[in-house]
């Protein structure tokens, strides 16, 4: 019995998680003002509309946003590893320092590669 009760919060979380999207969509449908125009009806993806680029990018995805996002994630992950290392810098000592330098060097190499390949040339 004890074990069954301890699962009830989990069940409630699941029910709540399932209900939230319905509530939000219903609220939006009931309360929000509706003034549709052609622009709003088109597909929206990653900061640009397909309509806008239809002539120039009809069959190729506009890729700059994605490369920049990739680079961001790369250095985001580096930061995640750097913080715990910085906190326990003394315990790791010289060995940890060299390992971290190597790790950062690999990522820097990637940055150099990306820069040379023209990821940052925003014309």
């Amino acid at each position, binding site marked *: 019995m004890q074990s069954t009760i301890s699962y009830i919060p989990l069940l409630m979380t699941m029910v709540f998680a399932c209900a939230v999207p319905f509530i939000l969509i219903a609220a939006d449908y009931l309360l929000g003002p509706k003034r549709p125009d052609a622009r709003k009806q088109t597909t929206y993806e990653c900061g640009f509309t397909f309509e806008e680029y239809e002539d120039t990018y009809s*069959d190729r995805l506009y890729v700059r946003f994605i490369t920049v996002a990739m680079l961001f994630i790369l250095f985001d992950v580096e930061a995640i590893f750097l913080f715990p290392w910085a906190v326990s810098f003394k315990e790791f000592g010289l060995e940890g320092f060299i390992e971290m330098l190597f790790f950062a060097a*690999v990522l820097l*190499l990637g940055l*150099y*590669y990306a*820069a*040379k*390949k*023209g990821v940052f040339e925003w014309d």
Partner: protein
Amino acid sequence: MSKEELIIGLYSLAPLIIAGITAAIILVISAAGESRAGSGRLRAVNAAEKLSYLAFTAMAFISAVHFIKIKGPLTLFHNAVFFDHYSAAAGFIFSVMGIFTIFIAASEMKSESSRFQPEYYALLLSAAIGSLIMAMANDLLAAIVGIEILSFSTYILCALDNKNKRAVEGAFKYFLTGAAAGALFLFGLAHIYGGAQTTFISEIPSMAAVNVQGPGPGAPLLIGLVFITAALLFKAAAVPFHSWAPDAYDAATVSVAAFMTYFVKAAVFILIFRIFAAAFIFMASSITGVLSVIAVITMTLANIAALYQNNLKRMLAYSSISHTAYMLIAVICSAGVYKNAVADCGAYIIFYLVSYFFINAAIFSALAMLSPGENRVHTIEDLKGLGFKKPFFSASFSLALLALAGIPATSGFIAKFFIFYNAFLSNHHALVLLAVINSLIAFYYYIKIIMAMYMQKPESGETAVSFGNAGRESAICLAVSSALIIILGVYPEVIVKLAKLAVISSF
């Protein structure tokens, strides 16, 4: 980590380290050559080719040294990786495959009209890193890192010709199915962890025995094994997980298609066999039925589909799917009833992979010699009338096709013979019968190509393909592989003995 651990770690990972550093250098070369136009690309490609060739040679050499010097199986890095004869043999095979791929790629990379960048070689090296991790993995989490490194390199290689719509389409299909396979693997791994409380291959049997209560192997483990096998069969392109293969092979350039047929397949089967033989042999009997059905469907469907193909690369894709099924038979038999089943099956899988590698290296280097630099689709009609005009080319090409079909005196025959004989010993009689019937069906489409070369005249009087002068490296590769097909076909003992040694000492 003590100093001794560090040294043996560096020693065991030396091939990986060489591959990684060389790949990084190639990327720098490519980036530095970016600003210069025209001849800059060719110079960078040449430098990258030489570097990667050196790296693969060094990796092969070091793996050979490992193979000779290792006394017995070791686990390193807190049990994350194995360092044994099996992984060293795998490392040697992957390195040689890399060298052959470089040779096949030479005519595509070096022609003036080619747009391929030196990154090609860096990707080959990173694929080698991934497959080596797969071969060494003891922790299944390390295995999935290896699988993903290999897969991502292959996706990019497949889409390398990114101005070509078909190439991008094929690569995208491959990417989506591959991502699904990765998810399946992780899902299965979660169940295995639930069932056995460990992700280490070497610990699964003992932990499973402790944790499982009641009869049977335990549902979570079985579910996990099924999911992991499905994920790996996705990568190996077995029916019903094969749909990406013809599109991806057709989309990729010749050398990349070759790479995908032997390299990816070898990496996947080496991992499948390790997981089967080292971790799940105690419950293999509960999954051999499913695998047998998959093997039969795979070979039948692939061979029948290949009958209707006119495009050479698509036909070879279906042919490679059918060969997956034959190797699957050996995996099934490793759970066999007689003594030494694991050692024999492991050795025969390795021999099959080696034999299949040389055959496909020959076939794809022959394809690379056709119309170099034109990047067009070759059909069987294109080969009409080549037979007596290009005697060396046609003879070697025919030899390789006959080896794929399994004619005696070629390595293809002896590889199939080992596997079928072994299946017969393990009492899988129906499986052997169906496999033999399928080999006969396969004869038809291989012979069709040979007939087109020797017995048919082209409509216009002129042969439809040109040879150019860019195919020197491919010709060398064709000659060497053809010679090896015959040598292995007549004298397979050396490889089989070494493979048996590797498997016996490692499992």
